[in-house]
């Protein structure tokens, strides 16, 4: 990958008397290339095995299966009732995205525009559910949901998934809102707009890119969220990740290839979501926002 890097500070070797090109590559590049190459080699193996297995007929100890087939996808779809599972996953994710945007964006607006006593405590409240892994608060949360008979239902799954999603929307939207000049709102107010119309007709159009980015990220997170759904889902409110886990873990003889086919379907749908997300969001600017015009 060294030849891909056009680093202006790299010592360009053009002199014919100079040492060969690979002597000019800095050790950092070698280390990066080795880390990069090793990671991808292993990753290709790890992804390759289930992928090949899901497309193969019988595979014991040889390098590749004896023959190729796509029948496992059909049998996985029937065996694990994937139609129902995909529907639940879509329903849960859309509900979580819509609700977290509805709750989170106004809160982000208030936090971006006002400095008030106790703001640090509110910020901490919004940071903690993201920092703490879901399993630690998921166990008490599921216990409470069981107490109110919400666990095992779709409502319970949505509520549990909202806990990290709402803060996530708040934290990604706050910098977006801070970038909008408050004078635009002041001008709208001067012209007689009330808070409602300032929000709907002035801010909302400006915020659409940010809201889209946050929504797509929440969607990816919710589809991939294992722990919270696992702790709160009942038999008919499982999302794809959880159904997949039960397919591997629960007792009974399952065909290895069907499970692999299901895992490949899960990964493909996540991959589509991730590629869509990367079109909206520059992942390198999630933490620090610096203008990305440093190509010179």
């Amino acid at each position: 990958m060294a030849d891909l890097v056009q680093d202006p500070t790299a010592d360009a070797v053009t002199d014919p008397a100079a040492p060969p090109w690979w002597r000019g590559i800095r050790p950092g590049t070698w280390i990066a290339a080795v880390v990069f190459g090793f990671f991808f080699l292993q990753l290709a193996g790890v992804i390759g095995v289930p992928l090949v297995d899901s497309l193969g007929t019988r595979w014991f100890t040889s390098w590749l299966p004896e023959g190729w087939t796509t029948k496992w996808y059909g049998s996985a779809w029937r065996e694990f009732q994937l139609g129902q599972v995909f529907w639940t996953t879509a329903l849960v994710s859309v509900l979580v995205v819509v609700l977290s945007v509805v709750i989170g964006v106004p809160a982000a607006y208030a936090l971006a525009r006002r400095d008030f006593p106790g703001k640090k405590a509110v910020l901490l409240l919004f940071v903690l559910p993201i920092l703490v892994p879901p399993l630690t608060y998921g166990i008490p949360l599921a216990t409470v949901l069981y107490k109110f008979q919400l666990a095992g239902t779709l409502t319970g799954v949505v509520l549990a998934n909202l806990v990290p999603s709402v803060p996530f929307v708040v934290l990604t939207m706050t910098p977006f809102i801070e970038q909008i000049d408050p004078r635009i709102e002041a001008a709208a107010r001067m012209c007689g707009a009330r808070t409602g119309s300032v929000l709907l007709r002035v801010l909302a159009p400006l915020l659409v890119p940010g809201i889209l980015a946050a929504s797509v990220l929440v969607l990816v997170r919710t589809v991939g969220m294992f722990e919270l759904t696992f702790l709160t889902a009942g038999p008919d409110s499982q999302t794809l990740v959880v159904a997949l886990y039960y397919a591997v873990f629960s007792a009974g003889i399952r065909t290895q290839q069907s499970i692999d086919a299901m895992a490949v379907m899960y990964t493909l749908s996540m991959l589509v979501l991730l590629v869509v997300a990367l079109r909206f969001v520059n992942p390198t600017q999630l933490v620090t926002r610096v203008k990305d015009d440093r190509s010179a």
Partner: protein
Amino acid sequence: MSATDTRVAPQPAPPEPPAARPALRHRLAERGIDRLLLLAVPGVLFLAVLFCYPFFYGLGLSFQPAQGGGPFANYRLFFSDPYLRETLWITLGLAVPAALINCLAAVPVAFRTRGVFRGRRLITTLLVMPITLGTVLTAQGLLGYLGPNGWFNKALLGLGIVDEPLALVHNYWGVLASLIITGFPFSYLLTLSYLTGIDPSLEQAAATLGADWRKRLRYVLLPLLAPGLAITFCLSFVLAFAVFPSAQLVGDPRKSTHVISIEAYQAAFQKFDYSLGSAIAMIMAAVMLAVVVLVLAWRSLLYRGATGGKG
């Protein structure tokens, strides 16, 4: 307000009538409290009900053991039973190396991909892709790939590096590999994000003053990156510490990868001892907090300036 004004007797020229106190609304607005804050109320209420309340409920529950024996019986049980106590060390033994490897591997890769070059988007996407795999595909892949008949062992045998297949799954190594595959993308993204947040003119200034890349790395970039790396380490550690599904699927959940989250889950939802489950969850939270505080305390000794990234 006007009523108080009229009570003040007319005086020659008072610079400011001291009795004229602005209304409470205005005084609050001056400190940033006005109706706009109502917008944040649903979010705060939501988290209070679904995050804080369950947490304190769980904390309270953990002091009401199902079997009786005083409020601390669950905690005493956890720390006196060697099988339970051991989970803490097993989890730390997985989480600390995984977080260290992920951070250290992310630094050189982030350095090489920070500039703008052709194919950067492709490479970033490839590096982030493992996020999409999910635990089960990773587990199935690791079981097949690293297993005794897997491609990895076949290749090692074929190259004559080993004489018999290495045992890499259903033990510590399988879980560690799974933690690295799922954790590396996060560390990489965070490191890259902190790295691109460092003002490039600082490095250019150092270069102008004659610093070669080694000196720029040693005296400019790494000190500025260190706080970000500390945060990255904390987050990777926290992610790895709560490892649950992969410890079940690629590990040896009864012995060498009997991690604390398995025990917490089993206590709460298989033995229906919610009190013990909550107690173990609280112990998990406390240990994580301790490690994070330790790392951040060390970090606060370092420079934390405008260009070192947000904390």
